[in-house]
């Protein structure tokens, strides 16, 4: 049973993968901020900080081309993007809250329409999760039934042990294959104890109760008191591991340009702005309501899952201190 990898071996393995032309994505420091980004060297990986953005962009880029056009005389030439050209990727050091969001995204991108752009990237990516040893009072994965050691979404899951190195479990064929192809870096059972893991404080939410209240309270004065302060930026959606709305725009000139798909957010005024000028979500509380509804009701209605993994990013970065954990807790007590 190959279920241990030393820190040094992990680094050597990653460097080898990078040298072999694989894209290795992990938390690393970029211009002063920890983000999931491709590594040039394994040692760049940051182990002890939750990246500012989630890992979702590995499959769902911030912005990607989906087509380009060029006009010549009266002719228009279109060039499609070939999803087979997406690079093979090892996503490593993924936090449980980020990895747990991946199956949630899978559901929506393969539902009535199979989004090749997402699925092909997803298909070409191996996810290596990493248990958390620290948490702050914005973390609330435990409140949603996950945990700092939850392997949901990971092909392979690493847990740090005392004295260095990681125990390693596989959960998918992809994970098993990964160990099989790089067996020399893994060794048998070590008796080292796992490091004490993080313990987010929040009690488990009664999500059924939350959903039941949401089912009945599309219109409720509570929305005003929750979200009058919301200023309508998209920061919460953009740092969220599970939010997946996107916009498609054509950018370029009369002669040539590209069709691009990029992240969108329900907090934006423009999100539901009709061409007619009418906006059904004309006030910020209505937009924020959609965020909560989508996460704890609509997604559940459709896919039987919650569109939130408790990473706490939106709580930390919200410019006006909107605290989704506090809101859900409040709803659950109603």
């Amino acid at each position, binding site marked *: 049973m190959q279920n241990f990898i030393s820190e040094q071996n992990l680094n050597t393995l990653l460097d080898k993968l990078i040298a072999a032309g694989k894209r290795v994505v992990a938390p690393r420091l970029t211009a002063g901020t920890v983000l999931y*980004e*491709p590594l040039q060297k394994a040692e760049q990986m940051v182990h002890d900080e939750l990246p500012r953005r989630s890992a979702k962009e*590995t499959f769902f880029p911030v912005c*990607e*081309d989906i087509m*380009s056009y060029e006009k010549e005389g009266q002719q228009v030439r279109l060039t499609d993007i070939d999803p087979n*050209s997406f690079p093979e990727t090892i996503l490593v050091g993924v936090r449980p809250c980020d990895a747990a969001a991946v199956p949630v995204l899978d559901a929506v991108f393969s539902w009535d329409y199979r989004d090749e752009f997402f699925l092909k990237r997803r298909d070409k990516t191996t996810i290596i999760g990493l248990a958390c040893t620290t948490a702050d009072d914005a973390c609330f994965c435990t409140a949603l039934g996950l945990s700092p050691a939850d392997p949901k979404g990971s092909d392979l899951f690493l847990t740090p042990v005392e004295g260095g190195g990681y125990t390693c479990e596989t959960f998918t064929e992809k994970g098993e294959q990964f160990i099989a192809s790089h067996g020399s870096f893994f060794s048998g059972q070590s008796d080292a104890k796992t490091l004490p893991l993080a313990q987010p404080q929040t009690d488990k939410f009664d999500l059924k109760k939350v959903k039941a209240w949401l089912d009945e309270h599309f219109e409720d004065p509570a929305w005003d008191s929750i979200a009058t302060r919301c200023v309508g930026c998209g920061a919460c959606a953009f740092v969220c591991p599970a939010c997946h709305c996107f916009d498609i725009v054509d950018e370029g*000139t009369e002669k040539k340009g*590209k069709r691009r798909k990029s992240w969108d957010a329900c907090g934006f005024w423009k999100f539901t702005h009709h061409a007619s000028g009418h906006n059904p979500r004309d006030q910020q509380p209505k937009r924020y309501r959609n965020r909560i509804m989508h996460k704890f009701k609509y997604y559940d209605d459709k896919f039987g899952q919650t569109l939130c993994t408790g990473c706490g990013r939106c709580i930390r970065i919200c410019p006006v201190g909107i605290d989704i954990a506090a809101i859900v807790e409040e709803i659950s007590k109603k």
Partner: protein
Amino acid sequence: MAKEKVYMHAEKQKHSFEPKIIAFVCTWCTYAGADLAGTSRMQYPANVRVLKFPCTGRIDPVFILKAFQQGADGVLVSGCHPGDCHYIAGNYHARRRFAAFRKLLEFIGVDLDRLQFSWVSAAEGGKWVEVVTELTERVRAMGPMNEFKELALDEQWSGKLDSPELKEAYNAI
């Protein structure tokens, strides 16, 4: 004298790089000045493309940005001398706006040698030739303005594509 001779009887030289210069000018002074250079048959480099505005007051700084993004290697903004504005004070407002904007561009890292401002009156055909020639030659010596062009091709890592065919198609755009 010597200078004029250069303009009037420019020896045709082939250069490895011909910069793209975009000029934003007001219709009453500089456009007319450029017309005068034409009617006087003065000669100047063919690199400049002129966009006519009613007044320098109409020129939005975004246009300068847009010009660089569209591949301009140098940008010229030119209008009426102070006190000569056809619209009383448009050039005074423009003067402040561009004084601020050039400082911003400089801070972002745009080399201000690529951005020229001038007052050229309807009577100053010669000055138009001088300004355009100088800017063209300066920018030609500096080489292409690659910053914005490279930026236009740059992607967030997650949206980058590596296939050579696509890269080629991309570079063509």
